[in-house]
C-alpha cells in the first residue's frame, strides 16, 4: 500500500472512532502545490497525500490547536503526520509542557527526503523524482525514521551512511570576525521582519514574542540593521538546544537569508558542550536546567 493510502486509511480509522477530532496532514491544492491540510470529517480523508513536497513542519500547529479551552478544559486530541525532523519537535514541545502525549496521535512517516522547491510546483504523488535535488537539510539528515510515533508508515530503514558536510558552516567559521560581521550584516540587510521564520517554527510559540512587545521595548520595531540582526540572533539564541533542524525557517524566507546556519551552529555548540541533541527524548534542554552530576559546563 502506498504511503498516501496508508495515511488515508489511518486517518479514516481515527476520525470514525472519534479518537481524534482532526488529522493534520498534507494535501495538494487546486494549483497542484502541496500544503498543510486539516481533516475533521472522515469523508474527506481522500484529500490527504504523501509526496516528496511535504516540506512543512506540521507540529507548528500543535501548540495553538491544543491550547486549553476558555474554561481551562483540555483540548481534544489531534493526529499529525510527521517526518523524522518533525517528530523530534514533538518531543521538545512535550518537554516544555505545550501539550500531553495523549493529546497527539503521531502518524510517523519514514521520509526519503523532501525535494527542494517542490511545494511550489505540481509534482507526482509518491515515488522519488530522478535527478531532482533534495533539500539541504535532508542531505544532512542522520535519521529517516521518526523518533516517536503511534503508527509508522513505511519500512524501517537504517540511518543514511553518507551525510552531506556542513560546508558553508565551516567556511563561515574559517573567516575572521570582520568578514563574518560583514557577511551577516549583508544577509540581514534583506530582512523585512515579516516574521515568517518565527511563525513557521514549532518552537517559537510565545503568546507575544519578546521582540514584538511594545511595553518593554527590547528592540525597536523598525527595520534598521541593528534591530534585524538582534532579532535573528536573539531568536537563534532562544532556540539553542531546542531547534530540531527542520530548516523551515529558511525555506519560508523570501529573501534567501541563511537563517538555518545560526540555528545549526548553535545546535552543534550545544551538542559539543552538553552532549545534548534536541528532541531525541522528551527532556528539557540544558540551557534551562541546573548543572547536574554528569552534565557538565562548557
Amino acid at each position: 500500500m502506498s504511503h498516501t493510502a496508508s495515511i488515508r486509511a489511518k486517518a479514516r480509522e481515527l476520525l470514525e472512532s472519534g479518537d481524534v477530532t482532526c488529522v493534520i496532514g498534507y494535501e495538494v491544492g487546486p494549483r497542484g502545490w502541496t500544503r498543510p491540510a486539516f481533516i475533521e470529517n472522515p469523508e474527506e480523508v481522500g484529500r490527504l497525500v504523501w509526496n516528496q513536497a511535504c516540506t512543512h513542519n506540521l507540529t507548528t500547529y500543535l501548540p495553538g490547536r491544543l491550547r486549553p479551552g476558555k474554561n481551562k478544559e483540555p483540548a481534544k486530541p489531534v493526529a499529525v503526520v510527521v517526518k523524522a525532523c518533525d517528530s523530534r519537535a514533538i518531543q521538545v514541545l512535550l518537554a516544555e509542557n505545550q501539550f500531553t502525549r495523549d493529546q497527539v496521535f503521531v502518524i510517523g512517516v519514514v521520509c526519503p527526503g523532501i525535494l527542494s522547491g517542490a511545494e511550489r510546483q505540481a509534482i507526482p504523488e509518491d515515488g522519488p523524482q530522478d535527478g531532482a535535488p533534495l533539500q539541504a537539510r535532508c542531505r544532512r539528515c542522520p535519521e529517516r525514521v521518526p523518533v516517536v510515533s503511534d503508527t509508522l508508515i513505511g519500512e524501517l530503514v537504517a540511518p543514511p551512511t553518507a551525510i552531506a558536510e556542513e560546508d558553508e558552516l565551516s567556511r563561515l567559521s574559517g573567516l575572521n570576525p570582520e568578514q563574518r560581521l560583514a557577511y551577516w550584516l549583508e544577509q540581514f540587510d534583506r530582512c523585512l521582519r515579516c516574521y515568517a521564520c518565527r511563525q513557521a517554527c514549532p518552537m517559537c510559540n510565545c503568546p507575544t514574542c519578546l521582540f514584538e512587545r511594545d511595553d518593554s521595548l527590547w528592540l525597536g520595531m523598525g527595520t534598521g540593521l541593528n534591530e534585524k540582526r538582534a532579532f535573528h540572533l536573539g531568536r537563534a539564541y532562544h532556540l539553542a538546544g531546542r531547534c530540531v533542524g527542520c530548516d523551515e525557517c529558511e525555506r519560508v524566507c523570501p529573501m534567501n537569508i541563511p537563517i538555518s546556519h545560526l540555528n545549526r551552529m548553535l545546535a552543534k555548540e550545544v551538542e559539543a558542550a552538553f552532549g545534548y541533541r534536541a528532541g531525541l527524548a522528551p527532556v528539557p534542554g540544558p540551557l534551562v536546567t541546573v548543572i547536574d552530576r554528569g552534565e557538565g559546563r562548557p
Partner: protein
Amino acid sequence: MTASPGPSAAGLAAFEPKILGFLCTWCSYTGADLAGTARLHYPSNLRAVRVPCSGRVAPELILRAFDQGADGVLVLGCHIGECHYDNGNHRTAKRVPVLKALLSFAGLEPERLRLDWVSASEGERFARLVGEFTEALRLLGPCTWRASAPPLPASLTWVGIPPGADPAPGGAV
C-alpha cells in the same frame, strides 16, 4: 555596512573602552563595593549595573549593550555553589558561553564578552579583573559591532514653536 578600519597606534593610546558590567547583588557587587572601601584602584571604564543574580542577565541585555555601542560586557556572578538563589549562576554558566559562541559566529570578537565569578570578599580580585578586561579591550580597539545608523539631519526645522521662544517660524536648530 562594512566594519570600520582598525585603530592606529596613536588612536589606541587614546581609546577608552566603554564597558558595561552586570554585577550580582549578593557577591560581585558587594565585592566591587569592598574594592571601593579598601581604596583599591581600578579603571573607571566600567559602568556597573546591579542585578539580583547573574542568572537574571538575559542575552537580550547583552545584545542590546553591544548594539548601543559597548566595547565590552562583563558579567560577574557568585562562584558555583555559592549563589544566593541556589542555582541562578548555573544558568549563567551555561548560557553565556553559548551566547558567546553565537556572537562570535556573527562577527563579534569573543573576548569582548566575559563571564567570571567574584565573591563578596574578593575586592582585590574584582579590581584585578576589571583592570585586565579594560586593558584587553584597549588592545582590541573600538568595537565595530554596531551597524551605523543614518546620521541625524544636518538642519532641523521646528514643528510648532515652544512658548517663550523666538516666534520666527522655521528656525534652524
